[in-house]
């Protein structure tokens, strides 16, 4: 379980997160949704410690994460995997070396065991015969898959995904969503995904948090989202005219 209490974050005088309190469900796919610039990425990066919170608490189970020093945070970070918006694969390393990197850094496994684990992770995300390719030789979808393989290489307890299907075609985007959901269930991970893609919301959202102008405006499940009275959420979910018509006709 990951819990955030009264979280504030600002950059210079710009308040990006304002008194955010939310609990993400353990072993579930939790979604943070909202318009571009609403503070989703800042929230995710603050939760994982890439940004320092101005105020508030971030709890991983019973540990107050944002009070820990670098070394103490490191132990929890070993249990985290993160998929970045642009994949963030290391350009100078091959696919195999990218996935192997966390294993090399934090385990004392033998070389054979490491390669076995790398191949297992790559097979799990359907990347075959690409071990020696460099990130520049991969398509957008493949990069995301390799980044997922790297994120799960140490069997994390927590998986964070920042816009996992941005820049992908709808079909590939759904495949990536499904893969994340499958992995979440398979490894009983607590997964938090940032997205503004409604396909993702309806496909994999088990718990959804809607952020509007740095504040949590709504929380619920994908079934509840369609019947919400939250105006900002309805504007976001039913953004196009066809969806608005369907919503009005269902009333």
């Amino acid at each position, binding site marked *: 379980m990951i819990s955030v209490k009264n979280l504030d974050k600002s950059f210079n005088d710009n308040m990006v997160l304002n008194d955010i309190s939310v609990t993400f469900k353990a072993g579930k796919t939790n979604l943070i949704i909202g318009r571009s610039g609403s503070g989703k990425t800042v929230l995710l990066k603050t939760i994982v410690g890439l940004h320092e919170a101005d105020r508030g608490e971030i709890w991983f189970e019973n540990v107050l994460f944002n009070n820990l020093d670098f070394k103490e945070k*490191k132990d929890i970070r070993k249990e985290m995997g993160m998929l970045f*918006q642009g994949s963030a694969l290391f350009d100078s390393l091959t696919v195999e070396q990218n996935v192997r990197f966390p294993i090399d850094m934090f385990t004392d496994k033998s070389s054979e065991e490491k390669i076995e684990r790398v191949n297992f992770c790559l097979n799990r995300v359907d990347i075959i015969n690409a071990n020696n390719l460099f990130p520049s030789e991969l398509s957008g979808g493949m990069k995301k898959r390799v980044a997922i393989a790297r994120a799960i290489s140490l069997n994390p307890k927590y998986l964070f995904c920042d816009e996992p299907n941005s820049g992908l075609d709808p079909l590939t985007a759904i495949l990536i969503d499904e893969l994340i959901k499958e992995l979440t269930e398979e490894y009983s991970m607590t997964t938090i995904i940032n997205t503004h893609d409604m396909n993702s919301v309806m496909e994999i959202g088990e718990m959804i948090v809607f952020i509007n102008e740095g504040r949590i405006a709504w929380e619920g499940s994908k079934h509840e989202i369609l019947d919400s009275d939250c105006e900002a959420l309805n504007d976001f979910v039913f953004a196009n005219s066809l969806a608005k018509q369907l919503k009005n006709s269902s009333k």
Partner: protein
Amino acid sequence: MIKFLSQLGKYCILLGKVFSIPEKPSLYYKQTMREFVYLGINSIGIITIISFFMGAVITLQTAYNTENPIYPSYLIGLGCRDSIILEFSSTVAALILAGKVGSNIASEIGTMRVTEQIDALEMMGVNSASYLILPKIIATLLFNPVLTLISIIVGILGGWIAGTLSGVITSEDFIYGIQYAFIPYYITYSMIKTVFFAFIITSVSSFQGYFVDGGSLEVGRASTKAVVFSSVLILLFNVILTQLLLS
């Protein structure tokens, strides 16, 4: 002034992170070997070419500006040797390396910053500053003296070839000149300067790249700043070190 002090503070804090104990020395070793190739061995070509022609020009300039029967011609060889050892192979070569290696480091680390690769390292609990910068510093501190030695040898060779082919000096006089009144400490002086300059180039360029904020435009700016600041600091420390080491 406040901005300068703030930047200096950030630079010192970054160096503190860089020189912390490595998490996995074997990975740092691999990374250092990679940097030896990228920052060191890949610079041999440009250093060789520039040193050769600079040695040649120094010899010809010395010859044409000392056309006087009072001066023995072997002084051309001596002038070539001392100019190359004292200033060219350490300072001018360092300025050239600030352009090649400095911009390379700043753009590499800057690109890693804007494409979230540094965030990915931090997420894994890796000390990104140490992992990315320490191997570069070690590689340049160890390899730049080798580049300086290559530069000295090739520069003097260039001077000898240009001098003898153009007929401004005989081969015997040039060789006598480069052996005449040789002070071995000049090599030590040159090496000490090289090590200082290597540290300046690598740390300043890494600092500029590490704190890039924005996109490709800012990476380009960081790269330019890395070259400019490194060059200015090299020139400043050249004066300070010369005063300290030769006075």
